[in-house]
């Protein structure tokens, strides 16, 4: 008997996901199940056991309902957005043709795609459920209550994952037909993380849970949050915590909330199957072509600003290719959004040190996003320059100019906005502070460009790109913290600026040398 098509597709998806660790693929399920069993049976209870009293006190408090609701809501959002983001960052519709030319129903495709990634997300669900069950078990929950708590996590997060899979498939079909659409997809794929980050920061530093716990405040937000499926399960957990071993005391709540969650899961499945035809087709297509307008005042000014001539044309060309990609603008928007969120929720106005530190790390990431374009379009784009006389030197100079022109005004504007919430700062001190961070951001452009040339990332999905993105904030934060300890706060700032320039120049020299060796 032939295997069902959804199984074949799911298995293929599973194999694709594990293709990077092909050697351990046969043992992966046993390894994962074994480690998870160890985690659920020993590790999670041991971790929770170290703060049992505080945990139990919290679970029975007024704040527990809102906090657990918010935690589950954040994770629920993540389970929807993450698969969507993965799809949007790299929209591939070429495989659709293979599937659609084969005798496979779209609903089987969708189910296969979902089941193929399910084991990996299930690991996350087990980890989360493991912590929560370990947390509530000391209260003396019955077996049925524990089983329902576990099922709450399974239903909530699998529903979210299914919705994310359906949304991802729909968006892929809708946006994958044109370059413009793919670009929009990449931009959305990046910005989609901001709402989850906003909820997390609001919980961490904004006191959102405390505000929601107050019966007299935030009625609208609290009601809206209560309507979400993730909150039904959260309420059930706190109900069980208040009535351990006595499910009959909350039978109505159990029936409505758990029943509602089950219905929500089934309704999501039904909706997905209904939308599958739309999620997998190549009917929609776009025949509209994007046009370039003639150079306006901005590009003319830019050309003059960098000295005009052939170099001006190079910088303007690079700028156009950069600025017309929405994904590039979304990355800049993302970093700006993160800085704003940090300032709104996490930074204390009377402690600007934290701001400087955050600015340090994030301006480095911003610079990396801007100048990272130097290699991510592939070797062939580098070869255009290599083919031209003195092409590599011009490339480095033009990328530096572009990096500074994009990054420095943003760094200045964000720093000025940050300073607006600092009380009693003199205009001179503010200007000095802005100048220091702008000079630092300029150093980061040099440093990241050098790093990208030294360790070329020929795709923004590749390992090198991820490594550089991790190295930059670690390098900047590390150097600042180290100099703060060694030199004291007054000297650490100027020292880090000088150090960043020196390291940046060194990396750029080495990177430019490496550029000539890329084959």
């Amino acid at each position, binding site marked *: 008997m032939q295997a069902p098509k959804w199984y074949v597709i799911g298995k293929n998806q599973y194999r694709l996901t594990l293709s990077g660790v092909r050697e351990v693929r046969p043992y992966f399920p046993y390894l994962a199940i074994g480690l998870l069993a160890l985690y659920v049976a020993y590790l999670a209870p041991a971790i929770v056991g170290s703060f049992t009293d505080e945990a139990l006190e919290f679970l029975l408090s007024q704040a527990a309902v809102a906090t657990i609701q918010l935690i589950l809501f954040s994770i629920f959002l993540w389970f929807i957005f993450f698969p969507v983001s993965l799809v949007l960052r790299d929209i591939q519709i070429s495989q659709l043709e293979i599937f659609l030319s084969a005798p496979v129903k779209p609903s089987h495709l969708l189910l296969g795609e979902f089941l193929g990634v399910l084991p990996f997300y299930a690991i996350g669900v087990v980890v989360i459920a493991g912590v929560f069950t370990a947390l509530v078990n000391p209260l003396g929950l019955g077996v049925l209550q524990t089983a329902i708590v576990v099922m709450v996590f399974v239903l909530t997060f699998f529903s979210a994952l299914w919705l994310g899979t359906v949304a991802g498939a729909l968006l892929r079909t809708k946006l994958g037909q044109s370059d413009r659409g793919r670009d929009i997809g990449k931009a959305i794929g990046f910005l989609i993380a901001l709402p989850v980050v906003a909820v997390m920061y609001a919980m961490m530093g904004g006191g959102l849970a405390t505000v929601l716990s107050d019966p007299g405040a935030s009625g609208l937000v609290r009601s809206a949050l209560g309507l979400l499926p993730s909150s039904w399960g959260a309420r059930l957990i706190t109900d069980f915590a208040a009535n351990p071993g006595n499910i009959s005391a909350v039978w109505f709540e159990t029936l409505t909330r758990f029943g509602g969650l089950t219905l929500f899961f089934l309704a999501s499945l039904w909706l997905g199957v209904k939308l599958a035809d739309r999620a997998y087709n190549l009917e929609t297509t776009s025949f509209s072509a994007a046009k370039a307008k003639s150079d306006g005042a901005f590009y003319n000014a830019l050309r003059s600003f960098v000295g005009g001539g052939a170099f001006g044309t190079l910088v303007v060309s690079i700028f156009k290719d950069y600025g017309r990609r929405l994904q590039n603008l979304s990355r800049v928007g993302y970093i700006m959004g993160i800085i704003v969120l940090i300032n709104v929720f996490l930074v204390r106005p009377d402690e600007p040190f934290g701001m400087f530190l955050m600015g340090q790390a994030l301006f480095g990431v911003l610079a990396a996003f801007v100048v990272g374009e130097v290699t991510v379009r592939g070797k062939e784009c580098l*070869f255009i320059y290599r083919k031209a006389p003195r092409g590599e030197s011009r490339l480095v100079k033009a990328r530096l100019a572009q990096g500074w022109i994009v990054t420095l005004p943003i760094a200045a504007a964000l720093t000025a906005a940050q300073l607006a919430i600092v009380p009693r700062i003199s205009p001179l001190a503010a200007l000095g502070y802005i100048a220091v961070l702008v000079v630092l951001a300029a150093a980061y452009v040099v440093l990241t460009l050098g790093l990208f040339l030294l360790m070329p990332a020929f795709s923004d999905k590749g390992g090198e790109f991820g490594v550089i993105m991790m190295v930059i904030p670690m390098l900047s934060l590390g150097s600042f913290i180290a100099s703060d300890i060694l030199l004291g706060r007054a000297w650490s700032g100027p020292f880090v600026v000088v150090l960043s320039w020196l390291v940046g120049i060194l990396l750029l020299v080495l990177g430019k040398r490496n550029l000539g060796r890329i084959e």
Partner: protein
Amino acid sequence: MNVVARTDNLCKYYGRHGEIKAVDQLNLEVYEGETFGLLGPNGAGKTTTVRLLNCIIKPTSGTATVAGHDILKNPDDVKRVTGLLAESPGLYEKLSAYEFLEFMAALYDVPRDIVPHRIEDLLKLFGLSDRRNHLLEGYSRGMKQKVLLAAALVHDPPILFLDEPTSTLDPRAALMVKDLIKELSDQAGKTIFVCSHILPIVEELCDRIGVINQGRLIALGTVEEIIARTGKKTLEEAFIEMTGGVEEKELLAWREHTHAGT
């Protein structure tokens, strides 16, 4: 006849111990004004040779001169006198055709006063004037190929390297490119180095051809000389004879097992 490109034991090896010989001991001369074709199966070393001669990659050993300039000592001079249409070229997809050609002209220091006219002329020549302001991302592969060919010509180089120039073009566009190559050679006196595995194009356009296989030059001469040397009737048969191919009896061998079982 003047030699405009000469390779001298040119080698390019890859791998930790140089075990992959992309180009191996290549000795070749290309004469001024001729159209030279480098023929070879996929992976034979054609693109590597072109990249070496355009100073995009450096040889493992040996050297070459292009228009009298050594590829190791004077790479910038070599680059100035050559135009390249690469096999899998980079393209700034968010630029329009006009903007891309303007960018390429700037890279090759074409005087600003002649750039607009030259770009307009090239766009007109390739039938792209109507779409001059469309972003390249919206172009078909054939249209992109035309833009790249225009980019290779934008600084009016005396030597042109064309790596698979017609492989992505429709018959009409391919004919136009063939005519253009003939014109560039006959009327403008350009030296043209064509890499291809499309035999009729090489046969029709090239004054001489070289056949490369597994990095080594295995034949050099006019089409007639190469056919005569192998004792075959056509260039296709001669090419297969020299580079190896699948035997006729092997073509349907994959079905025999199935049919034997049924």
